[in-house]
């Protein structure tokens, strides 16, 4: 007799509906409360996992709103494996289509930024490009040899998502924010393993896109001049290198 799959499926479904699984045994007056311990553990555990991943989203909407929203998200988007650090990729899109959050049109963009921070935090550890290799690449002697560290992610938004995120960090100075200001964010992890968020200009973002595609510093600078004819990549390259965000293209092929 194969009753275990049926029982487990009924238990799993009952966590959402409250219907007791077959054979659940306790005093009748207590059994719902006992089953509810499991129901609460599952819901609470997943809400907390999401809250850990999206702290600024939670701060923007408040505790109660966040929990109610997370509960609805969880009903539709359970994790598919136990590696919860990768769960929540669908949360920004869920927020974008969530009518009660329509009053905060930037919420989904802030969620994208927070998800990207988590990806950067857990990204792999390829060694940064050495100074000599960077010098060769910058002089064109060694073309197409540069790659971006796997933590590096470029995000664009029609809202001031970086400024809003920064305003919700400890010690942030209060100030006026125009949420409708478009912003471009570069998320990366530095050599101390801290995640950083930089605001980029359009030319800088084109440089990053070009570098990611071609691995060629001079070519990427040329692509950036489409947006800004006077663009000089030196400062950005030095900043990226200092952060350990440039690696060898060969490292990424391993």
């Amino acid at each position, binding site marked *: *007799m*194969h*009753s*275990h*799959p049926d*029982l*487990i*499926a009924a*238990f*799993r479904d009952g*966590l959402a509906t409250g219907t007791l699984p077959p*054979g*659940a*045994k*306790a*005093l009748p*007056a*207590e*059994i719902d*409360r*006992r*089953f509810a*311990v*499991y129901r609460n*553990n*599952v819901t609470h*555990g*997943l809400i907390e*996992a999401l809250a850990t991943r999206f702290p600024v989203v939670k701060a923007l909407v408040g505790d109660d709103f966040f929990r109610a929203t997370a509960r609805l998200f969880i009903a539709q988007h*359970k*994790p*598919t*494996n*136990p*590696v*919860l*650090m*990768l769960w929540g990729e669908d949360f920004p899109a869920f927020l974008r289509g969530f009518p009660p959050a329509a009053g905060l049109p930037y919420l989904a963009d802030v969620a994208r930024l927070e998800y990207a921070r988590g990806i*950067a*935090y*857990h*990204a*792999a*550890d390829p060694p940064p490009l050495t100074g000599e290799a960077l010098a060769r690449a910058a002089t064109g002697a060694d073309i197409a040899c540069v790659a971006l560290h*796997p*933590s590096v992610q470029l995000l664009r938004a029609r809202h001031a998502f970086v400024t809003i995120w920064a305003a919700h960090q400890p010690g942030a100075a209060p100030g006026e924010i125009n949420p409708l200001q478009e912003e471009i964010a570069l998320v990366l*992890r530095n050599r101390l*393993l801290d995640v950083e968020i930089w605001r980029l200009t359009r030319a800088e973002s084109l440089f990053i896109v070009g570098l990611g595609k071609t691995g060629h510093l001079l070519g990427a600078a040329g692509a950036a001049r489409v947006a800004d004819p006077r663009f000089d990549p030196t400062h950005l390259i030095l900043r990226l290198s200092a952060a350990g965000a440039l690696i060898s293209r060969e490292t990424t092929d391993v």
Partner: protein
Amino acid sequence: MPSPLPAAAGLGFKPEHFATIHQTRPALGFFEVHAENYMGDGGRPHAQLAALRADYALSLHGVGLSIGGADPLDRDHLARLRRLIDRYEPESFSEHLAWSSHGGDYLNDLLPLPYTDETLALVCAHIDEVQQVLGRRMLLENPSTYLEFSQSTWVETDFLREIARRTGCGLLLDVNNVFVACTNRREDPRAYLADFPLHLVGEIHLGGHDAEFLPSGPLLIDAHGSPVADPVWALFAEVIDRTGPLPVLIEWDNDVPDWPVLLSEARAAQSLIGQTMTGRSRHALAS
């Protein structure tokens, strides 16, 4: 074969305590981490675990294999575990008599199963597979439970003993789980421990629980967010007196306190382990 965990008190590692641990190198038997928190590719979690592992014995504790589930084990997850074990070579790997996944959903909790011939065969097949893929013996932990199943035809202690006999796995005795589950079943935890195959125990867990009140008495909840309760310390003292020194972990996963509080819980466990050692040598001298 990995060397065993030291028979001493250890602590669950919490990243907020990393700097203190790294600077003060406290005398502890080992650290334990949840395997699933170290399944990212890199970054700070791995940097901290590598540094910790260089100084201490390591226990890898899985919470996501769903050994008591009805689905086949997740091969990708087993492969992730294997990579982690190859990288850090922990002294011990342990998992739970529980399930957490079904039909592609991961539920992030340790859920209960009935103890029947059918589930016995299933759990043993899963443990055989785990031990084969990981190339090592694992420890299986007794669960905290809040309700029972009328389908069960085995009592938990016999079920665990039979699993260990069939698979060769060892057992992780969570004394708090014994107190929680027995209290919730209105059974005597001392009777449970008298039936428990203590010779198979490779590690002991101690942790805190919460309590609610039902018409028939307390409903205890395994919460790992408070100090070990006095009745659990008392049960532990009796167990460790019978087993002799074993690796003993303090679990405190939620509302994690400041480092000195955790360390004092470990010291309290160590003191009871130490009394066992002196007690044994006294017995030896007397005989």
